C-alpha cells in the first residue's frame, strides 16, 4: 500500500467535485516543489483500455489533482497537458497551447503611438479553463489586418484541441499526464496596470517634515504614524539631486494635498533622506508602494486560481523595505513579475520567497535560513535526535544540514548560510521510481540525465542478477 493518496477532482472553476482515486492507476507518479513557486510540476502514466484513456484525455484537462499523506495535503495542481498514444499516434491536449483572451499591440503609423487592439475572447473556453491571455506583437500592418490576425489566433488557440505530435511503431495505449502547480496559472495573465503611482503634479512644495502637491490627494498613500510605511516618495530636484522619504499621515480632511514625511520606515523620525530639502526646489516626484502591496494587487486582479494568503509578516522590525515603481515599460506576465519582485529580497539583503501553498494561497515571506531538516545516513530527519526518517512526500524546499559532513565551521565573509554543513535546497522532487531528489540552484539537466542513466544501469544489473539466480 503506497504512502500517498492521489485524487482527481473536477475543475476548481466548477464545483471541484471528487472524481476518482488515482493512487493505483497513476503509474510512476513524480512531482516537484520549488522554493520560489511552491507546488511545481508532476507527471504520471496511465495504462488501460482505450475507452478509459480517451475519457481521461478528452474530459480531464484542467481538473484538480491532490496528493495526501496521512491526511495532510502534500501537493496539488492542475492537469495541464495530456498525451495519448494509440496505435503509435501520439496526440496532445495542452493548456500550454491554449489562449482564449487575445489582443495585439502595434505601432499606429498615424501618430507613431503604441496601441493595443480590443480583446477577442472565447467566453466558453474562459469559463471552462480560466482566462489565458496572449498578446500578439505586430507591426507594419493596418489595424484591420492586425485584428484579423488576432481573430485567427483566437480561432486556432481558444480551445485545447487534440493535436498530433508524432507517429511511431504501435504499442499498447498509454496516457502521459503532466500536472502543474497553480503558480503556473499566475502567468496566464499580463499584469494589470491600473494603479499609476506616478502622479499628475501641480505646484510642489517642501516642508521640513512634509510635502505638498496642490493637485494631489495623498489619502490613498498615507500610513498612520508610527507604523510600517507602505509608500515612499522620491523627488527629483531642479539641481538633479534626489530626495526621498517614507510617507506618513496626510493632512486630510483639511489639506489632503499635504503628507507627512519620515526618514525611517517605522515613521518615528520626521524628515527627509537623500539630498535633503534645504535649498532645494522639487521638480517632479513619484510615489512607490511596498512590494507586498503590489503583490496583493496582482494576485487579486490577475490571478484567477490563487488568493492572497500571507504577503508580509505583521512583525516589522525590518519588514520588506523595497518599494519598486509600479510602472512597466512593457506588458509583463504576472508570475514573471512577481518572481522578479520576490527575488529582490529586502534592503537588508535577506532573501525572500513567494510560493503557492495548499488551498492555492500565496505566501510571501522572508526565506528561513535555519536548518529545517537534518541529513543523516541518506535520509532526512525533523530534528537532530530523531530516529524515524521523514516521509519524502512531506519534504519541502528548505535549508538542510548535512550532519555527516566532516567539516564544521563557518565560511569566510558573510554568507547567507553561516554553517558550512548547510545546503540550500531550491527544489524537491519525489517520485515512486527514484524516491527523493534534492536540487540546489546548481543542479543541472545534465546531472539529472546522469542520475537517470545511473538508475537505469542499476535497474538493468539488478534485473540481470535476478535472471541469473
Amino acid at each position, binding site marked *: *500500500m503506497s*504512502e500517498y*493518496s492521489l*485524487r482527481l477532482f473536477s475543475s476548481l472553476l466548477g464545483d471541484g467535485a*471528487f472524481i476518482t*482515486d488515482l493512487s*493505483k492507476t497513476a503509474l510512476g507518479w513524480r512531482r516537484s516543489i520549488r522554493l520560489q513557486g511552491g507546488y511545481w510540476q508532476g507527471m504520471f502514466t496511465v495504462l488501460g483500455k482505450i475507452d478509459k484513456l480517451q475519457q481521461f484525455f478528452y474530459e480531464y484537462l484542467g481538473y484538480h489533482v491532490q496528493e*495526501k*499523506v*496521512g*491526511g*495532510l495535503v502534500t501537493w496539488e495542481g492542475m492537469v495541464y497537458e495530456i498525451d495519448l498514444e494509440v496505435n503509435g499516434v501520439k496526440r496532445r491536449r495542452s493548456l500550454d497551447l491554449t489562449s482564449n483572451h487575445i489582443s495585439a499591440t502595434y505601432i499606429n503609423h498615424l501618430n507613431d503611438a503604441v496601441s493595443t487592439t480590443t480583446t477577442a475572447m472565447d467566453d466558453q473556453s474562459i469559463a471552462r479553463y480560466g482566462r489565458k491571455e496572449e498578446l500578439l506583437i505586430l507591426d507594419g500592418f493596418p489595424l484591420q489586418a492586425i485584428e484579423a490576425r488576432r481573430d485567427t489566433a483566437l480561432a486556432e488557440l481558444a480551445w485545447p484541441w487534440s493535436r498530433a505530435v508524432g507517429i511511431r511503431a504501435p504499442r499498447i495505449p498509454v496516457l502521459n499526464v503532466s500536472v502543474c502547480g497553480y503558480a503556473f496559472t499566475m502567468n496566464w495573465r499580463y499584469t494589470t496596470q491600473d494603479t499609476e503611482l506616478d502622479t499628475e503634479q501641480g505646484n510642489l512644495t517642501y516642508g521640513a517634515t512634509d510635502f505638498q502637491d496642490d493637485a494631489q490627494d495623498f489619502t490613498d498613500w498615507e500610513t498612520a504614524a508610527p507604523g510600517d510605511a507602505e509608500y515612499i516618495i522620491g523627488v527629483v530636484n531642479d539641481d538633479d539631486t534626489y530626495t526621498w522619504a517614507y510617507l506618513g499621515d496626510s493632512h486630510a480632511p483639511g489639506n489632503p494635498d499635504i503628507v507627512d514625511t519620515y526618514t525611517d520606515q517605522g515613521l518615528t523620525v520626521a524628515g527627509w533622506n537623500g539630498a535633503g530639502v534645504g535649498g532645494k526646489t522639487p521638480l517632479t516626484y513619484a510615489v512607490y508602494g511596498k512590494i507586498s502591496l503590489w503583490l496583493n494587487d496582482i494576485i487579486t486582479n490577475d490571478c484567477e486560481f490563487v488568493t492572497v*494568503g*500571507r504577503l508580509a*509578516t*505583521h*512583525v516589522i522590525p525590518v519588514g520588506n523595505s523595497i518599494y519598486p515603481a509600479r510602472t512597466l515599460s512593457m506588458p509583463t506576465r504576472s508570475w514573471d513579475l512577481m518572481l522578479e519582485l520576490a527575488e529582490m529580497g529586502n534592503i537588508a539583503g535577506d532573501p525572500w520567497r513567494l510560493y503557492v501553498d*495548499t*488551498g492555492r*494561497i500565496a505566501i510571501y515571506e522572508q526565506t528561513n535560513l535555519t536548518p*529545517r531538516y537534518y541529513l543523516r*545516513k*541518506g535520509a532526512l530527519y*525533523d*530534528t*537532530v*535526535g*530523531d*530516529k*524515524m526518517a521523514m516521509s519524502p512526500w512531506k519534504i*519541502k524546499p528548505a535549508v538542510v544540514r548535512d550532519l555527516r559532513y566532516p567539516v564544521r565551521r563557518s565560511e569566510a565573509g558573510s554568507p547567507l548560510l553561516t554553517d558550512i554543513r548547510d545546503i540550500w535546497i531550491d527544489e524537491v522532487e519525489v517520485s515512486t521510481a527514484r524516491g527523493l531528489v534534492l536540487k540546489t540552484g546548481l543542479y543541472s539537466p545534465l546531472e539529472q540525465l546522469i542520475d537517470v542513466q545511473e538508475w537505469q544501469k542499476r535497474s538493468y544489473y539488478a534485473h540481470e542478477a535476478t535472471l541469473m539466480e
Partner: protein
Amino acid sequence: MANRFRLADVLQVTTVDLRDGTLKLVDRSWQTSSPTPDIDYVDLPYGAQSKFSHFERHLDACSLHGFDTVANLIAGANAIEDALEGARLFHDDPLNPTSWWLEANADTESVRRSLLYGGVLNYVTGVGISPLLECEQMLARLSMYRHPLWETISFTSISDSGLSTIGGMWTINNVLGVPPARMGVVEVEKGTAGSLYRVWMGIRDEYISLTNFNPLWECEDGTNESGDCADVGGDATASNNTKVVCDFSVTEAHVIRMSITVADIDAVNDIDFVGRYLILCRCKVTAGTVALQLKSGYSDTAAFAPNEIIYITNTDWRLIELGEVLMPPEGYWASYAPRLDNFELQIFAERVVGAGNLELDCLILIPSRHYVDVVGTDIVTGNHETRIFTHENEEMAALNFSGSNPDTSPELSDRDWYLPVGTSALIIAAERETIQVLGDTVTVRMSYVPRWYSYRDA
C-alpha cells in the same frame, strides 16, 4: 475436518475439487510456502537496515492425474480452466463480481482460502499419457498465481455505538491471524441528528498497552505560554465546557501559545500513548485569519520538530489537521524503556489578518499507521451511512448509502488500512460540513477476515 483442496468461486456456488475430482491431486505434489516478503535494504558497514515493502504474489503448483473416459477428463480440465478464466475476468473487468479462490486445509484445520489471479494448466506427456488422451489418462501440472495470504471463508462482524466524534475510542479484541486482517467493510452510521461530512478513523496497535490511552487532550489541561492565552469556562459548545482563548494582546507574532505533555493527560501511564498520530485540533477564530503550527518533542529539547503552518478562518468549531507526530520520536526499543511523560505538543499561533481571537478546545490523536479519512460523507441518523470497502484484491472504495442504495462517492484517503492482530483501538473523529458539533455520535460496524501466512491456528 477432512482436508480440502479445491477451486471455488467467492460464494462457493461453483467448485472444482482437486482432491477427489476427475483430476486428482497427485500425492505430495502440491508445492506451496508462506509468502515472500519484498524488503528494501540500506546496507551499513556491519549490517543493514530494512524496510518491508510488500508480499509478493504467490505461485503454487501441483500435479493432477485423471484416469477416466475422455469426455470426463475433458470436462475435468475444462472445469479447472473455467475457474482460471473466471479469476482472470474478475481482475480484468470491474463489472465482474465473481472472484475465484484456492481453498485448502489440513486435517482438523479450519478451511482457508487465497484469492486467485490466474493460472496455467500444463498437459504433461509420458508413457501412456498424452494430451490426445488415447489411453484415457491425463497428467497435468497446475500452476496458480494467488494472493500471498490465506483468509477465512466468512467474515467476523463487530460493532460499537455511541462513539464520540471527537476521539471516540473502540477497543477491538481477539483478532485472529498472523498479518493484519482485511476489513471487508467498515460502516459509519450516525447516532444523532445532523449530517456528518467528514470522518477520520485510525487504528492503533496495542504496542505496550491500550488500557489507559486517551486520544482526547483538553487544551486547558496544558500550559498557556504567551501571556495572552487563558482558560475560559462556561462554553457549552466546547469539550469539557472549557477552552483556551488567545487574544494576542501581548503579541500577534508567531510564538508558542500553548503546550501540553503526556504527563498533563496521564502522568502514570504515559507509556500507553506510544504510537503514530495525526493531530486534529478542535479550534476556531472569532474573526480574521490565524496561522497555526504544531511542534513536538521532549520538553527540554532545544529544537522541536515543526509541522506545516496551517491558516484557519473558521468562526465555528472545526477539526483542523495540524500534522503527524511519532511518540516517542526516536522509536521504541527493547534495549531501554522510554518514558513519554515529557513528550510535548506545542501550538504556535500568529494573528495574520484582522483582530480576532483564537479559541482552542482540544487535541485529538488519530492513529495514522492504519488510517483512513473520508470527505463528502452524508451520514445521517436512520438510513444514511458511509461504507468503506477493502475488497479481496486489496482495492479500496467508499460509498455513501441511502438505505440499501449507493448514493454518492465520497473522497477516500487511506494508509495501510488493515486491522492489527490481537488487540487494537479504533479512534474516530467526524464533523459536519461547516461545523463540528460536540454532541454528534456515531455507530461503527466492521466485518473483517483474519489472515494467515499458511496454516490457520484457529
